[in-house]
């Protein structure tokens, strides 16, 4: 079989296995195993299974993953997120659609302490949706804002997806984490503007009643803020430490988790069982990621070995395509994959395909990372398989139908059209901050 056949067949088999609900890690591993067997021989195929997993996991750079997860788990488990939402609510509740705005910004704040958007959506759904429903908010808006606001966590550092992208694409993880800040803030701002405008034009989405309670209690506002300032300080320390080059991502994660733990203990929010539960969550999620990750490394090696990467690069080279065409093609691929696939799977399967093309055209790989992560996050919101939507559905139970949540995401997805146009049209949005570090 020639190069392109091998690559295409492997991809087809991979998708067939995924459709049969074979765990993603298993599907990737088996396809690569078979691929090496066909291309070389059985012994070599075995040897890849023997060496790759340990090499992949015993890796200093990837320690940022369990540590970012742990930091988010501690913040979540300690209930600091509750205080965060309370403060946002008291300060912003008076605006049109104020609770939704508050939820959106609390998502951004929690996202700055958590590396995972699914975690952010789950946490905020538990806190904010009941509150919004009690105030008569539109169900779609209430559920949509937590599902979509959660995606901010993957852009604002810390971010698991950027760590993984950095490892697989061999791009500076610090640059990527810092690059995500402005697109994350931009997304939060556009979401907020959309909520304000929609609620101003259609007050039935977010009724006035009860807004008074947020206007009057000035003192409460400041006490609420006093409760969250340690978290704000932690977030600034982590991002500042990364930006300032004082600590590496791994160290920022471990140090951030430790400081979050100290804050939680000092505020009396965390006992030993809570802490152990946080570590358990973080370690289980780590093992989940590595189970997929090692399969992805095998598949990446297989594609490299088959020469599929070279083939794609050469093909692109001969077409001499316009970067904009490439980005458009990439957008279509991600929107389709994002409808069905798991975010980690999409990231790890597509990196070896798109990276050589971007390299061939001399495009900025940090920019590509931001685009990829954005699209993956959009995929969390699109039907039929939208992980963030499922998570929110899991929390709200029978109170809101699945279709309503997907519909609620529609307006946010409309915002994403604007945001993606800006991110693609102005690469500086992503590349400016990391460049100031130079």
């Amino acid at each position, binding site marked *: 079989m020639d190069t392109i056949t091998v690559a295409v067949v492997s991809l087809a088999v991979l998708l067939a296995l995924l459709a049969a609900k074979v765990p993603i890690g298993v599907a990737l591993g088996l396809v690569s195993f078979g691929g090496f067997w066909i291309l070389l021989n059985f012994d070599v195929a075995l040897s890849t299974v023997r060496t790759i997993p340990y090499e992949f996991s015993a890796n200093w750079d990837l320690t940022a993953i369990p540590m970012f997860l742990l930091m988010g788990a501690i913040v979540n488990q300690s209930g600091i997120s509750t205080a965060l939402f309370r403060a946002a609510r008291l300060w912003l509740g008076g605006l049109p659609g104020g609770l939704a705005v508050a939820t959106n910004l609390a998502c951004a704040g929690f996202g700055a302490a958590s590396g995972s958007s*699914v*975690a952010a959506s789950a946490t905020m759904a538990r806190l904010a949706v009941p509150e919004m429903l009690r105030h008569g908010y539109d169900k779609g808006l209430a559920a949509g804002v937590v599902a979509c606001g959660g995606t901010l966590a993957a852009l604002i550092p810390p971010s698991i997806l950027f760590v993984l992208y950095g490892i697989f694409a061999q791009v500076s993880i610090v640059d990527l984490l810092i690059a995500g800040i402005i697109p994350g803030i931009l997304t939060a701002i556009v979401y907020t503007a959309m909520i304000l405008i929609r609620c101003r034009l259609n007050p039935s989405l977010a009724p006035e009643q009860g807004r008074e309670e947020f206007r009057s209690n000035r003192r409460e506002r400041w006490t609420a803020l006093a409760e969250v300032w340690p978290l704000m300080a932690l977030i600034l320390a982590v991002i500042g430490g990364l930006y300032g080059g004082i600590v590496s991502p791994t160290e920022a994660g471990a140090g951030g988790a430790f400081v979050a733990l100290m804050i939680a203990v000092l505020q009396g929010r965390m006992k030993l069982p809570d802490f152990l539960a946080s570590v358990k969550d973080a370690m289980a999620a780590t093992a989940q990621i590595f189970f997929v990750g090692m399969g992805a490394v095998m598949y990446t090696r297989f594609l490299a070995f088959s020469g599929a990467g070279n083939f794609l690069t050469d093909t692109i080279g001969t077409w001499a395509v316009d970067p904009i065409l490439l980005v458009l093609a990439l957008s279509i691929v991600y929107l389709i994959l994002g409808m069905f696939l798991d975010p980690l799977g999409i990231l790890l399967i597509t990196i070896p395909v798109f990276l050589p093309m971007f390299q061939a055209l001399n495009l900025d790989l940090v920019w590509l990372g931001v685009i990829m992560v954005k699209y993956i996050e959009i995929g969390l919101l699109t039907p039929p398989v939208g992980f963030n939507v499922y998570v929110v559905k899991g929390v709200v139970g029978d109170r809101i139908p699945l279709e309503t949540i997907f519909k609620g995401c529609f307006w946010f997805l409309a915002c994403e059209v604007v945001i993606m146009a800006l991110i693609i049209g102005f690469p500086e949005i992503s590349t400016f901050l990391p460049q100031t570090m130079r």
Partner: protein
Amino acid sequence: MASDSISASGRDTPSGLDTPDGGRPDDGHNRLTRWLNPPIRVSLWVAILAGTLMMLNVTVDVLGRTLFNLPLPGTTEFVSAYYMVAAAYLPWAWLALNDDHIKVDLFTRMLSPRGRFLQDLFAKLATILYLAIFTWQAWIMAIQQTEKGEVWEAAGFYVAVWPTRWLLPFAGALMLLYLVLRLVGDALRVRRS
């Protein structure tokens, strides 16, 4: 707590980990797998210990380096070769117990009960095959590296890393055993009903 990836089961906690004993797929009615609970739990606890030590070790190293010019020698090697390996592999069987390995739910919801049964059987067999290869090879590697006395060069000394090679075949075998017993248990139940 979730990674950015979950099984699309739409449960409250993305990975279902907040419910250690209730509502998990196995639910304990598979008597065959019950005796695996202790080793699965112990593995998880060791991973929890590793995660805690990872946080402490790295934090002490950063503080020592930035404040007192005293980095903790060997941090990189210990964290990578010991704590990371424990965190990456030891929870595997626990994840299998909770049906929490990441998969995609695409078409299976459209299948008939019989189709769904066959799909589930196929997915389980594929997983078992993969884990069998993994465990077999990891076992060979562990023996090889133990005989060779695998070490990494650290700051001023050598760190023996061969011991953590054994975590792979252990974790693989535990998950493999669990899946096989569960499959057998399911088969027995199907025959009974």
